[in-house]
């Protein structure tokens, strides 16, 4: 979707403000939101792609105003309601619905280190077409899907060169919407800064994106 989250190339969003000695969390609730997101994620009711898309669905004006973990909190609540883990009434009341059964958490303290250490690899050992080879000139397609995509607007319609074949990875555009992983080949593509931003860019500079087979075409 062409949302405000797709920020590459925008101007006017202000100076970068690094904070000396920045703490990992600025308040305890931020750490709890991170932990809740990972712990509820262990139920396997949604994918990382769905959780990214849920945050993209936050209205643009709110997205720009909210702090990072506030966006995570909103996204988590919406996903839990959508997938039936909680009801809006329970969120509003802060109490279990009458008659609700108590579940058993899938992620216990004893399993945290192993689960985080294993992670969730996105590559899949399945056959998938390899339409492009390292060294091929490619063009990012000019697509404007209303759903989730990882092809930023600034690269659409631009020409680059395939630099790397990452193998076959889960396709976010379908996986975010519950349409399956539909693994596709993923390529590292180099775009010259001038092809993206015009002649004012430094001649040797480049921007590198990881793009799935479907995002690319022959120029």
């Amino acid at each position, binding site marked *: 979707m062409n949302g405000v989250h797709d920020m590459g190339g925008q101007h006017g969003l202000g100076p970068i403000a690094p904070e000396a000695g920045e703490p990992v969390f600025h308040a305890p609730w931020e750490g709890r939101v991170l932990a809740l997101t990972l712990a509820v994620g262990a139920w396997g009711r949604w994918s990382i792609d769905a959780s990214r898309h849920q945050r993209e669905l936050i209205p643009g004006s709110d997205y720009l105003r909210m702090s990072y973990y506030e966006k995570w909190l909103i996204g988590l609540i919406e996903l839990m309601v959508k997938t039936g*883990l909680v009801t809006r009434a329970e969120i509003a009341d802060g109490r279990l619905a009458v008659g609700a059964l108590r579940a058993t958490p899938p992620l216990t303290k004893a399993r*945290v280190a192993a689960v985080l250490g294993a992670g969730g690899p996105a590559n899949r050992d399945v056959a998938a077409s390899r339409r492009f080879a390292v060294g091929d000139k490619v063009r990012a397609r000019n697509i404007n899907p209303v759903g989730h995509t990882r092809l930023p607007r600034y690269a659409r319609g631009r020409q680059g060169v395939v630099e790397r074949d990452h193998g076959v990875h889960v396709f976010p555009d379908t996986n975010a919407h519950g349409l399956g992983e539909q693994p596709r080949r993923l390529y590292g593509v180099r775009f010259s800064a001038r092809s993206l931003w015009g002649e004012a860019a430094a001649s040797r*500079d480049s921007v590198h994106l990881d793009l799935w087979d479907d995002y690319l075409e022959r120029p």
Partner: protein
Amino acid sequence: MNDRPHSHDHDHGQEPPSDLALRVKALESLLVDKGLVDAAALDAIVETYEHKVGPRNGAKVVVRAWTDPAYRARLLEDATAAIAELGFGGHQGEHMIAVENTPAVHNLVVCTLCSCYPWPVLGLPPVWYKSSPYRSRAAIDPRGVLAEFGLSLGDEVEIRVWDSTAEVRYLVLPERPAGTAGFDEEALAALVSRDAMIGVAKVERGG
């Protein structure tokens, strides 16, 4: 504009709980009551990212690459495996690539679409990395962004920006500063900043 709603110069410990803090507390209590999460597991996750997983991991990778040419070659060939040799990997670092800075090439990492970042080696990203100003300008104006961090690179240096659009995560292998031949691994690691491994700083020998 910073994308945080207010300044963080003050001490949160001195304030009454914010609306967000209360909402999160209520949500956690509900989810524990429902048996959806285990409070001790939440504590363990927070503890992991506050105290165990952070940029000191990445600094060990960088120092090993500086001091062991065979390791450097393995890191540039297959970063996921090379990083796993040091015991780091997993969530948000499943597919790693190391990109090497040289006098002629400078690498800079961003995620323009969200906040992708190599957690096992750098920990959780700082606020500025996740902020609109950095995400919007790193790809279109890397030289201006680097100048804001106090790093001015000449036109003869090629800048490569890595936009983390998939589940591949990038670690910058900075240049080893001159005059550090006698440094042991611990002294070298102390020089390697998080910012240098994102690419918004160089590693300096220091005073």
